């Protein structure tokens, strides 16, 4: 294991193929034996504008995007060349170059496509001064020219990869393999030629730098995929065969993946008129006996508040996915934030009984989506998987065996027709769907499905008696409310027994703690390792169960530290608030490190934030906010 790492950033305009090029680059590095992790940055714009993707590669599992980067491939924004709108676009074609100056590390390599940019323009942005100051190795290459020689300008991405490989001394074998796998005929040949020409041209330049790309080999077969892939696959493996949705970034990803694959698995996908309908359809399918899901992002999820409450009251199982982006309202469509936590916990009227999981990474996206379905259908309760634009967009490799799990098609607590015959019926002829005290002593009264003989009942959003008839009888009300709410205790016990979704990191006897939820866990864990190397005594607890809240686990952990810093990507410390509310204390023990500028934390920021907080100093960085402990 070495400290060497490559963080390669490719920048260009949206629509320039930045995303697919970075995916291929990451895959090729994975094939060569490295562990990879990608971080996407893109504007809410389809073509043009500054976009970049980082690929971080190490010889150990990568938990986060890292701090800054050490290799820039700047392609130039080809959509900036619009003669009619020149005035508007201005010098936008240079953006992929100068907008990336800030985070390129000292001694890093900057490879740019001079074929797209005029020398005069490049002079104006101060590249020379910046390079001198930071000891960058600047490599201008006519990537566009190399591409055009073999046909089309668009292949400059391939030229960039070839040049990168030469400068970093990476074999082109894996890239060739990818080109052969993805393309055929003339396209394949042209791309192979571009790859080799650019490689040869860059080899001659002999760039002298310190980046060492580590080498390693995986013990087992790897796959590279996104959080949205993992959520979709978790759903399919847990027997979900119905999805309904309305497009909204970043939820669209899961919706698209599911829609593309479900029919082949014998399932149904429905794109409908709005999000109210989307969630209502999932409810209808589930009521009729199918495992179903829907989802959205903040604004669309707001519309789902009604059907969500209906699912709670009628005890109809459904799984909803909430892919967070920065709010309020339309907010920043392509930027991550963790600010919808209270939205998913509390939206909809009345005292609510729902389950909320916030997976930390791609691994957890798969397992917790499976948990969400199992819990929803066993306990007849809506379950929500909340994740964010960060996990949605990032790719990461993990052993393929993680997904080597048996499918589970069990529809949960549903009776067969034979069992319905033996079950209690009301004198009106209706099946007792909502018993006050189910026979097995649990809080779950098994359901029937329309079409089953003698299983007729009424599902209603009104309070109802055991056979589903609307009732405002006070005693019935209390019995039904208690049973619905008590399920949450049962679910907590079930989760504690079967799967803890919480992750502990760092030395058990550490003095300080960092508490974190959802997608920021990996970054915090990396920061914790560095803090301990710096001589601090820190551990972290990553929480993924938002509801029912893992009170005992978090409580014990908070007892074990002197102070805890709660790290989250929002402005109002929602998770810290939840923790304090659920545990009823520790307000004097928890301070907050918050970030809400549209970018996720980097490990160094957490290190800085932690150090300034224990030193009682102001945060040096202006992109974060520190909120001290408030008392109980």
């Amino acid at each position, binding site marked *: 294991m070495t400290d060497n790492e490559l963080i390669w950033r490719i920048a260009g305009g949206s629509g320039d193929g930045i995303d697919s090029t970075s995916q291929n680059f990451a895959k090729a590095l994975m094939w060569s034996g490295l562990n990879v992790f990608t971080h996407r940055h893109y504007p809410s714009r389809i073509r043009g504008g500054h976009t970049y993707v980082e690929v971080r590669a190490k010889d150990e599992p990568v938990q986060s995007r890292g701090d800054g980067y050490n290799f820039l491939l700047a392609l130039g924004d080809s959509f900036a060349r619009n003669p009619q709108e020149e005035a508007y676009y201005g010098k936008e074609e240079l953006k992929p170059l100068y907008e990336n100056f800030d985070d390129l590390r000292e001694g890093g390599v900057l490879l740019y496509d001079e074929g797209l940019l005029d020398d005069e323009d490049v002079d104006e942005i101060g590249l020379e001064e910046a390079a001198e100051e930071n000891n960058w190795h600047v490599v201008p290459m006519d990537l566009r020219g190399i591409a055009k020689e073999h046909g089309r300008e668009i292949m400059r991405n391939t030229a960039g990869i070839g040049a990168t490989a030469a400068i970093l001394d990476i074999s082109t074998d894996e890239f060739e393999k990818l080109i052969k796998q993805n393309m055929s005929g003339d396209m394949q040949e042209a791309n192979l030629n571009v790859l080799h020409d650019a490689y040869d041209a860059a080899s001659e330049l002999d760039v002298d730098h310190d980046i060492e790309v580590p080498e390693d080999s995986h013990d087992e077969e790897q*796959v590279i995929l996104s959080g949205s892939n993992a959520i979709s696959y978790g759903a399919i493996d847990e027997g979900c065969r119905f999805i309904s949705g309305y497009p909204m970034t970043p939820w669209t990803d899961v919706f698209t993946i599911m829609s593309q694959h479900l029919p082949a698995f014998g399932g*149904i996908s429905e794109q409908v008129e709005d999000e109210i309908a989307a969630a209502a359809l999932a409810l209808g399918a589930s009521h009729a006996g199918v495992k179903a899901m829907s989802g959205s992002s903040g604004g669309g999820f707001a519309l789902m508040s009604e059907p969500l409450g209906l699912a709670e009251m009628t005890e109809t199982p459904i799984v909803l996915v909430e892919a967070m982006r920065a709010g309020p309202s339309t907010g920043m469509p392509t930027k991550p934030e963790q600010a919808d936590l209270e939205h998913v916990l509390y939206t909809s009227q009345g005292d609510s009984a729902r389950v909320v999981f916030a997976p930390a990474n791609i691994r957890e996206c798969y397992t917790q989506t499976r948990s969400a379905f199992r819990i929803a259908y066993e306990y007849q309760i809506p379950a929500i998987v909340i994740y964010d634009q960060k996990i949605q967009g990032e790719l990461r490799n993990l052993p393929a065996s993680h997904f080597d799990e048996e*499918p589970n098609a069990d529809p949960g607590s549903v009776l067969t027709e034979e069992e319905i015959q033996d079950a209690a019926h009301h004198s009106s*002829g209706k099946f007792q769907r909502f018993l006050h005290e189910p026979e097995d002593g649990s809080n779950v009264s098994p359901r029937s499905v329309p079409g089953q*003989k003698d299983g007729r009942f009424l599902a209603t*959003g009104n309070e109802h008696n055991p056979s589903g008839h609307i009732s405002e009888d006070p005693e019935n009300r209390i019995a039904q409310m208690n049973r619905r709410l008590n399920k949450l205790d049962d679910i907590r016990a079930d989760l504690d027994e079967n799967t803890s979704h919480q992750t502990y990191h760092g030395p058990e006897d550490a003095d300080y703690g960092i508490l974190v939820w959802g997608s920021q866990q990996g970054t915090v864990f990396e920061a914790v390792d560095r803090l301990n190397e710096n001589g601090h005594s820190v551990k972290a607890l990553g929480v993924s169960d938002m509801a029912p809240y893992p009170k005992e686990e978090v409580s014990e952990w908070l007892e074990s530290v002197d102070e805890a810093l709660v790290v989250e990507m929002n402005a109002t410390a929602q998770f810290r608030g939840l923790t304090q509310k659920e545990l009823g204390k520790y307000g004097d023990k928890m301070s907050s490190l918050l970030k809400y500028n549209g970018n996720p934390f980097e490990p160094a920021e957490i290190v800085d934030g932690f150090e300034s907080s224990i030193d009682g100093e102001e945060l040096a960085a202006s992109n974060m906010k520190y909120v001290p402990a408030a008392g109980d």
Partner: protein
Amino acid sequence: MSAFSAINEEREIERDEFTPGIEPQATWCPGCGDFGVLKALKQAMPEVGKNPDEVALFTGIGCSGKLNSYFNSYGFHTIHGRSLPVARAAKLANPNLEVIAAGGDGDGYGIGGNHTIHTARENHDMTYIVFNNEIFGLTKGQTSPTSPKGHKSKTQPHGSAKSPIRPLSQQLNAGATYIARTAAVNPNQAKEIIAEAIEHDGFAHIDFLTQCPTWNKDAKHYVPYTDVQQSDEFDFDVSDRAEAAEMMRKTEERLYEGEVLTGRMYIEDERPSYGQEKRQIGEMPEEPLAERYFDEDAEWERTYDNLLEHHK
């Protein structure tokens, strides 16, 4: 054996099977048109040969939503305006279910107007009955989307400046393949139309005029009515779109002039239902999806065997 043995059970169906063993106390007002819908619906079931266990009735909120309590079948009393999307998915999940949705004029033409249009557009194989009494009943008499222009209520004390919605024309444009108007005061026609609508293979929209003697004193203008199929004055081809459009225009205009025209307004038999279309293009399984969850022999594929390959 199917997990849903009640479906397609072959036997004589009695009307009384749809009356709950113990009738919940009726909370509709005396003289309410909703009784007429309930009666017509119950009478239609033996005609189409459906038994209570294979029928799923989805309602919205309001007086019409109570239909579920007095009709013995599987029921889902959903939320205001949302009966259609819930019903649609149940039909897709189990196409063998007889799916009926019902709601008021506020429910279907106001708050749920979007769903009404889209369900018609997609031509789901189901029946939608809108209890149209031109008033919000359960919230105590406010103006509804079908209230006439100038209608005075507590929320529109100066008289409504809005023209009423034209549900028949709207649903024709949206794509419904069976559109009819009937009235609670005409139980025989209502029964026939409901039975036809249920048997229709596509989206059947019934605008069901129901009087509200409590909040809408004008309800009496629903008597007398004219059955456009029975009257020589209206010799039109119910399968001709243009003629149907003209008929609907007349029907909707004359309603507010005090003349009630009822009957079948449009019937299109050629267009396949949404489920058929989806099956044809391979977006829906041949067998009812819901059955698979009860079939011990069903094979459940997993992503590991199918989808992981291109991530490797």
